[in-house]
């Protein structure tokens, strides 16, 4: 393996390019029209245009990606996460074109991609699943039949898309009279989002935590589970903050849940990196939820507490190396790590996306800080893709120190031109419930509702005065507005000279 095509964009493409360079492998970027100036294109060894900005016409085009691999002479493909990362047709197309797919087999993706099939695999491995239907509801099942099934599972329950993900095609039903309409709505949403209207029923656990187990598995039978990640801080079923280890997981539970995860992976002959998600109830009982057959967004925190490089291991496993990681090392965290997903969203306006040009950016740095980002000053945050601009992670000796370090990093993180969720994280990390670890998957939606649109960071009087002073100084110092189309180079020289003169 000498050259890897990265079938993705943004921070994860940058992350994979970095692993390639560290391993002395060539990296090939692909880009859509609006991503010509993106950081992953600037950092890669080669770059190929694959079409218009809409994902359907570029990053989701299997034919164009395989063609870019052929033109570049790449011998392997890394899918990142999102886009085609969990698409078995893409994995099969790569293998069919003689490329190594850096991920599990198409068959494993297909099995674990169906929620009902994955639940079956967990059961066969002796791992408990949330009570629910074994198979998708029949397309011709009468509402009486569905109601009878629902009664046997118990309320409240969830209607979930078999092909689901990201909270789409999912409905909570508390009152049996809402069941039929919820099934109809989930089916139509699932059909639109995933091209598959199949749904199933699952009991809704009260106040569960979302705990997940990262795995690596090689082609020689080794499966290594890692210390758990706590991902209960979610907004509308999307993770917002992740940490490892979990404050709620005892050593005994860790041993049990990580062995269960390994058993599920072994049962399906899983290879490469994957993550098994569990719900943990108030009594510490855990239930298999689903498996993600790819690298996770939140993989950096696992790297920080174990010192292992998951992306490099993905590549090493794909080229046939033995996974000779000491299992105890993967399960024994050194210190504590937290990640905040920084989004181009306005937290004070119902988290509406805030696309636009980043005019100034200085990410946090210094001891224990890692910023995985695809953003730079001068770049537009495009409207076509997920608006995450950076994953800010903090490591420290223990959880209180990691929280303190993250708050320090958030205070340092400087971005202008767009709104970001940084002020929201500043608020969240100062909440007593967060510090005490008193939360479950319902926590964030609850506190956001209670906040009811009030700003997360109310500027203190002193801060408003400083803003007024700064705005006046900025206006006083700004050169007169240049002509509409940018002015001549001479004008810019003058501006620079004036700026120089200030000091």
């Amino acid at each position: 393996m000498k050259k890897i095509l990265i079938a993705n964009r943004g921070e994860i493409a940058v992350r994979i390019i970095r692993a390639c360079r560290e391993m002395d492998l060539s990296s090939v970027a692909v880009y859509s029209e609006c991503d010509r100036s993106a950081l992953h294109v600037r950092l890669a060894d080669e770059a190929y245009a694959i079409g218009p900005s809409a994902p359907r016409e570029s990053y989701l085009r299997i034919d164009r990606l395989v063609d870019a691999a052929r033109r570049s002479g790449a011998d392997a493909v890394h899918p990142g996460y999102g886009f085609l990362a969990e698409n078995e047709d893409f994995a099969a197309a790569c293998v069919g074109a003689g490329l190594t797919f850096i991920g599990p087999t198409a068959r494993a993706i297909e099995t674990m991609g169906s929620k009902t099939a994955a639940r079956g695999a967990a059961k066969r491995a002796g791992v408990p699943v949330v009570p629910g239907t074994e198979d998708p509801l029949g397309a011709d099942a009468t509402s009486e039949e569905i109601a009878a099934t629902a009664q046997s599972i118990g309320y409240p329950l969830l209607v979930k898309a078999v092909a689901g993900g990201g909270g789409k095609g999912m409905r909570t039903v508390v009152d049996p009279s809402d069941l039929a309409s919820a099934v109809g709505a989930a089916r139509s949403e699932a059909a639109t989002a995933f091209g598959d209207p199949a749904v199933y029923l699952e009991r809704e656990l009260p106040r569960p935590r979302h705990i997940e187990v990262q795995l690596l598995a090689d082609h020689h039978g080794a499966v290594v589970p890692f210390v758990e990640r706590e991902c209960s801080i979610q907004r509308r079923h999307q993770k917002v903050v992740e940490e490892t280890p979990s404050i709620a997981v005892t050593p005994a539970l860790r041993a049990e849940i990580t062995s269960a995860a390994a058993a599920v992976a072994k049962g399906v002959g899983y290879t490469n990196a994957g993550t098994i998600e569990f719900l943990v109830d108030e009594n510490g009982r855990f239930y298999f939820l689903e498996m993600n057959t790819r690298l996770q967004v939140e993989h950096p925190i696992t790297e920080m507490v174990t010192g292992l490089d998951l992306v490099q291991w993905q590549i090493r496993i794909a080229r046939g190396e033995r996974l000779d990681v000491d299992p105890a090392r993967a399960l024994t965290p050194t210190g504590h790590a937290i990640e905040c997903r920084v989004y181009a969203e306005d937290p004070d306006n119902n988290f509406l996306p805030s696309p636009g040009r980043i005019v100034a950016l200085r990410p946090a740095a210094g001891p224990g800080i890692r910023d995985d980002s695809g953003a730079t000053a001068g770049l537009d945050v495009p409207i076509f893709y997920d608006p995450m601009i950076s994953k800010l992670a903090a490591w420290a000796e223990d959880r209180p120190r990691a929280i303190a370090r993250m708050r320090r990093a958030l205070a340092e993180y400087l971005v202008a031109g767009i709104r970001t969720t940084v002020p929201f994280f500043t608020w969240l990390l100062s909440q007593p419930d967060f510090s005490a670890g008193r939360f479950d998957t319902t926590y964030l939606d609850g506190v956001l509702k209670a906040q009811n649109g009030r700003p997360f960071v109310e500027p203190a009087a002193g801060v408003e005065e400083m803003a007024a002073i700064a705005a006046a100084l900025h206006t006083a110092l700004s050169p007169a507005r240049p002509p509409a189309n940018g002015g001549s180079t001479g004008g810019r020289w003058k501006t620079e000279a004036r700026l120089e003169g200030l000091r």
Partner: protein
Amino acid sequence: MQHFEIEVGGRTRRVAVARTGDKFAVTLDDRTVHADVARIDAHTLSLVVDTECPTGATDPVRAAFEVTIAPDAATGQLIVGVGPTPVAVAVNGRRARRRDEASGGNGPQRLSAPMPGKIVRVLVKSGDPVRARQPLVVVEAMKMENELRAGRDGLVAELHAREGESVDAGALLVVVQ
């Protein structure tokens, strides 16, 4: 000496700036602070501000601030970042309104699409009574469904949003009166 009227936090403040070398005397209402200003780039200033000790017993504290200043495309105001806190500011009467008061008061609220996207749901009908913060329209953009809400109590006077329709940023969707 330059004079500015600066709206921040719902108040109008008078600010005067006088320059001596690279030092600035900034008078905010009736209080004057002395600031040393370094321009880092077109959007970033470093300020070192003398803050007089109230008793005069010690030398002034020289407080350091890093601030960013950038226009807010949506409102035409300036967003001043003081550390991690964004503060909306309007200079010299550019109609500044706090977001939660946007189109509040007595005038109608004209709800526009904040970004290009697709209307996935319209939750009200023309003539419906609505409450402040009630979701009116759901727009899908950047892989997310985004609720656009009423800024005030009132009636749906105009409804231009249609389910399934693609809209550009700034397209008028609903008028609440």
